[in-house]
């Protein structure tokens, strides 16, 4: 059994914190893209994941994903429910098991949060919270077991038995979330006024800020997935940097050719598309290969966004175009561009490895996509028929910030709100000033 390594431990703990930051980053990335009447709801859809997932991760999530396999690589056992058999002395590889628990937790949080962009502006908050619990339980936990659980050939079926390469979650995170997003967008339906009303992003600086936070956190996501602080982590790091850069360039190139202007939304979207695509491939391709992965992702994702107009599904913030397509690009390109210099064995088609790796990558990608789509579609439909997934028309038109949370995101008036309302006085020392403090006034 390898000894505990303090350098590895420090890097994985730091990476865990980096990956946690991605979810608030995602909240801003998404929040800036919606209309101002829904920005708080959009932030909350991500933030509630930060609240729900850690609790269920400790209670049973980690066990189902990472306890000893009980079903031919499909599911983990219940031996670590409540983290009962994990202690301060427990070691996973060269790091404390608690560090591994924490690191993997962050992946579960961001994956389900990614889906929220597909149903922006119209999902019931309570139903969304329920969906988070159920989706993580029946979709994420098994898939994470398939892809992330290694146990000397007895681990998850995709990673440890089939031998598909997915370093940081092209399948388990991005194809998974992207396919779920497509299913949920279809179940919940189009926003009122889709394609008729202008639905401009209300705060592009937020979008760029969010993309920057995602990029920063993604170094923990990809490089931290080495679960060690050495050459592999560093290689994944540089690949993450350069693929993202290439994807920004190619996304902007598409815009300049098609629309004549390079947009900030395009730059931020390109960055995320590149990050998604390099996620599975960051420890399989060379830095030049990473440039190719990023460049291809930027082009294909920017074009894929148009699919929703062709097929008529309102994937509001393009989770399908960016995460499903980007995840597929990265996962499949490993089959072409994998080099033994990084993988330590497996080689892609372009490096003389033949079709074998591409076949494995395709099986992994398609299985996760189909599983996630089908289960999410059924789960979403059941929730829609029982508790309802969609807010009322009035609520949707008014905006979810007010109707779901009874809050207002922005106060821009120079009079700081005195013109629209006043503070409610405690009853005992309330003195009527002008008009009496009434509930009407507070709500106004």
């Amino acid at each position, binding site marked *: 059994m390898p000894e505990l390594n303090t350098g590895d431990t420090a890097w994985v703990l730091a990476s865990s914190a980096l990956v946690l930051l991605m979810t608030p980053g995602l909240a801003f990335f998404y929040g800036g893209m919606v209309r101002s009447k829904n920005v708080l709801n959009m932030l909350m859809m991500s933030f509630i994941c930060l609240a729900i997932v850690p609790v269920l991760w400790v209670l049973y999530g980690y066990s189902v994903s990472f306890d000893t396999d009980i079903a031919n690589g499909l599911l983990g056992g219940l031996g670590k429910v409540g983290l009962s058999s994990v202690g301060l002395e427990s070691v996973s590889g060269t790091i404390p098991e608690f560090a591994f628990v924490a690191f993997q937790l962050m992946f579960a949080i961001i994956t389900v949060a990614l889906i929220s962009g597909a149903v922006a502006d119209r999902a019931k908050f309570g139903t969304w919270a329920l969906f988070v619990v159920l989706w993580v339980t029946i979709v994420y936990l098994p898939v994470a077991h398939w892809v992330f659980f290694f146990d000397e050939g007895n681990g998850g079926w995709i990673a440890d038995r089939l031998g598909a390469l997915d370093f940081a979650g092209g399948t388990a995170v991005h194809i998974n979330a992207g396919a779920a997003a497509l299913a949920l967008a279809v179940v919940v339906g189009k926003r009122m006024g889709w394609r008729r009303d*202008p*639905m*401009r*992003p209300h705060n592009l600086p937020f979008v760029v800020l969010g993309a920057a936070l995602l990029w920063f956190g993604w170094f923990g996501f990809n490089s931290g997935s080495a679960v060690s602080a050495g050459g592999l982590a560093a290689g994944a790091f540089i690949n993450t940097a350069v693929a993202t850069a290439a994807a920004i360039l190619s996304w902007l190139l598409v*815009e300049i050719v*098609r*629309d004549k*202007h390079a*947009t900030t*939304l*395009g730059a931020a*979207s390109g960055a995320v598309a590149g990050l998604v695509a390099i996620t599975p491939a960051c420890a399989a391709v060379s830095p030049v290969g990473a440039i190719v992965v990023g460049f291809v992702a930027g082009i294909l994702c*920017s074009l894929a*966004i*148009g699919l929703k*107009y062709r097929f008529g599904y309102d994937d509001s913030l*393009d989770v399908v175009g960016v995460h499903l397509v980007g995840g597929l690009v990265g996962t499949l390109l490993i089959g072409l561009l994998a080099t033994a210099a990084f993988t330590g064995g497996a080689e892609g088609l372009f490096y003389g490895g033949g079709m074998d790796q591409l076949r494995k990558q395709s099986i992994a990608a398609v299985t996760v996509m189909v599983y996630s789509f089908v289960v999410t579609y059924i789960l979403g439909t059941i929730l829609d028929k029982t508790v309802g997934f969609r807010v009322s028309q009035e609520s949707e038109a008014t905006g979810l910030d007010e109707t779901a949370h009874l809050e207002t995101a922005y106060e821009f008036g120079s009079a700081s709100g005195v013109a629209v309302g006043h503070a409610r006085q405690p009853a005992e020392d309330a003195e009527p000033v002008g008009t009496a403090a009434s509930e009407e006034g507070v709500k106004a």
Partner: protein
Amino acid sequence: MKLVTAVIKPFKLDDVRSALETFGVQGMTVSEASGYGRQKGHTEVYRGAEYTVDLVPKLRLEVLVDDSDADDVVDVVAKSAQTGKIGDGKVWVTPVETVIRVRTGETGAEAL
């Protein structure tokens, strides 16, 4: 008394303001406005989706003047706000019945 109202291109405000100051106008009210005339709006593209922005940003400038100054003030504003390109805006004059300076209670021309 007259109220001179002008809708102008935002970047011309400095020119108009200094021209009015030189003429002797002592105060004005400026507010942000949006609208369109013959130039219409423009089209923005977000992730490939086109949105037509119908209303373009403008500034609305209001100046209270004595009857005798109205024509000159209109002239000053129109000249200083002009770029010669479409979307330069409009200036118009409306009659005003009463003006009171809140601080002193002065009325009419005294209050300008």
